[in-house]
């Protein structure tokens, strides 16, 4: 479904990704894990057009999407939940959801239905529908960010560290949601710092270190791989 080939990205003089190749198949959950600064976020940004790639190609459903500006990516059915939630803090929860549906511009009826669907997914959001998104707790903001990204009914959802700064109970809720999405036929790609948890829910995973793919394979195999802890905490 998504194919990344030899992708390299640099910020000015800084190389962030070096010849990264990976793929996501329809219906799976793919995790990208690795320590801070490994280039995980850059990878996602390059896929959804927020960051220009230096070289490499990105194919989505066979279409070349590298170089497509971010605001057009959603049109392909690919939705990105950015790191740190990035909800529109001074707008209401409901407005955030409406903005999530900006690209489909369907009739009001349809948007209302989608909003109701998201409220069902996260009843907390319904309770806080008219509250400013900036006043929500971290966990609620993450729910909102996920729901907002789902408003366009994407086929592939890309999430950037949904667990960041959340308490375990919220982490569980978010990860549960990912499993539900998979069950409902969506494809999920998730970047995570919480490697073990990400491996537990994903089918396959890529381990990134200093801008390169260090390991990849079935998540259950990686779970048993001892070298993983070392990539995180270093070796002496």
């Amino acid at each position, binding site marked *: 479904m998504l194919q990344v080939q030899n992708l390299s990205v640099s910020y000015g003089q800084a190389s962030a990704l070096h010849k990264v190749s990976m793929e996501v198949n329809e219906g799976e959950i793919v995790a990208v894990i690795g320590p801070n600064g490994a280039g995980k976020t850059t990878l996602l940004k390059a896929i959804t057009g927020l960051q220009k790639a230096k070289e490499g190609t990105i194919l989505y459903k066979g279409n070349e999407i590298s170089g497509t500006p971010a605001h057009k990516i959603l049109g392909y059915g690919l939705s990105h939940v950015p790191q740190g939630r990035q909800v529109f803090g001074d707008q209401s929860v409901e407005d955030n959801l409406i903005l999530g549906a900006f690209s489909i511009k369907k009739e009001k009826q349809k948007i209302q239905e989608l909003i109701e669907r998201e409220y069902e997914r996260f009843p907390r959001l319904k309770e806080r529908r008219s509250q400013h998104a900036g006043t929500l707790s971290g966990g609620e903001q993450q729910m909102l960010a996920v729901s907002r990204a789902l408003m366009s009914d994407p086929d592939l959802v890309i999430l950037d560290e949904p667990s960041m700064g959340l308490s375990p109970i919220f*982490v569980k809720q978010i990860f549960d949601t990912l499993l539900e999405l998979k069950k409902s036929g969506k494809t999920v790609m998730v970047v995570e*710092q919480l490697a073990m948890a990400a491996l537990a829910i994903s089918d396959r995973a890529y381990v990134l270190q200093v801008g390169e793919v260090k390991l990849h394979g079935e998540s259950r195999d990686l779970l048993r791989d001892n070298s993983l802890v070392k990539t995180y905490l*270093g070796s002496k």
Partner: protein
Amino acid sequence: MIKAKWWIYQIGIPLVLLYAFPWFFNNAHTIHVAQTFLITYIVIVGLNLLVGLSNQLSLGHVGFYAIGAYASAILTMKVGLNFFASILISALIAAVFGAIVALLSLRAKGPYLAMVTIAFGELVSIIANRWVDVTGGPAGIKTSVPSLFGFELGPIQYMWFIGLLAIIFTAGATNIFRGRFGRTFTAFGNSEVASEVLGINVRKWKILAFSVSAFLAGVGGGLFAFQNQFISSTTFELNLSIMFLIAVIIGGSGTKIGPIIGTVVIIGLPQFLHNFVDYHLMIFGGILLIALILLPDGIVGALTKLSFFKKFSSKKVNTELGILHDDREATIDLPDGISGKLLELQNISMHFGGLKAIDDVEIEVLGGTVHGIIGPNGSGKSTTVNVLSGVYMPSGGNLLWKGKNITKYAPHGIAQEGITRTFQNLQLFEDMSVLQNVMVGFHRHFKTGFLKNLLYLGQVSNEERYYAQKAYDLLRIVGLEERAYEKASDLPYGEQRLVEIARGLALKPDLLILDEPAAGASPKEIEKIMDVIQRLKNAGLSIILVEHHMDIVMNICDYITVLDFGKKICEGTPETIQNDPRVIEAYLGGEEVNQLVAGTKFVG
């Protein structure tokens, strides 16, 4: 530049041109235009120091210009001073107002800063307009014919006189440009925070930059007052401030010859457009717009990009270097080591609104050790570094340095105490060469004052050469001596990080804080950086190391503090940390989460 050459280009040739001018263009109109050109040029030289070097914005320079004009008019006509004395006094008055504007605008940024300067200019212009008893208002007041030592200066002599001043001020400006003052102006114009942590009191330096700039505008205004023996308030309007700014930008802001070219454009163009008076604004606006789009670095900036003109390249600050030696061994110059407690964080908290970025953190850093601070994203590492370097004032707790309370110190105060840092998001001085970047680091060791630099006395050039050599030695230590003359921002990321380290070392610090020195570097560069840090450690430097690359942290640090959610979760030696379940949990996800998630997988 060699001394003799300097005298020829800075003084000799301009003097000859100035002296010869009337023989070629001897009509009243041309002489008048030449006077206007020279007067405006003096103002532009001053504005270029402010806008071009220190990146400040002034849309109120007409205010200083007017103050210079009216004060000297009043001093000659009512007090009876000689015109030249009154011009100098008025320029000093303008400089004082420059300091006031700087003080008022210290914290203002962007459009707010623009507004402060506009408001000042407008206030002066309103006063000029309305305080008719003193200024004559729009009807104007008469001034005297300028005279020196009893000789009245005719138009040509007055032009010579103005030209002489212009040459002297240009020489002074050039001296400022090439010495440490120019470097410091450029430094805080490029990055205020980096200047501060190198010990530069940015507030003081901004005031100086505004004062110098206002002084020259004041001189220009004073000279203008005697050009026609008449001034009226209609001259001193916002449009003139805008014209001054246009000259700086079109000429090439921050360059040495930009002001000449910029002044030619704003004074010369209207002469050419004389026949198109109805379309004057339109043509001028069109040219300005096209120039801004096509020549973002101004005319001089565009020319220096052509290789033919490269040798004349005068963009930004140059340093007279002398010969840098490679033969003697480069050693790291460090203060005497201190054992025992160097720095203590006592219950430090930093709150942003309701968010506790760090909460009640206690850390002790011992002299001569490398102390690591690690933690996942958002754990409060950056905030801790910002508090340590004085960039943030903590909401609670105390910061003790060798037992002394430095909690309320500004960053430059902390730097004066011997603590400096590097930045995760690089804060290099982009308009300077690598060597100049490092030379800024020696700020607190420089001794020469403003006047000496203005004249560029031997003492100044000795000092420059001394520290250039020292900076070069530091570059050899980090392995960048071959890059010394390149623009800092042209280097690869990893090498830029090394420049920041060398710059910090120039301070001769007791404690160096490295904020993610390996972020964004390639594996090869990381090795280099690691090697440098290791050598600094061996030399006995105390270091705080914030880093994500655990290989570096675990291999170099003597002691590590781990933060999570703004709290210290544990500390100890690298071995302790690597085996501490709390750390593994913070980084990889806790058992709790794993079980929860794993549980759902089987249930689901």
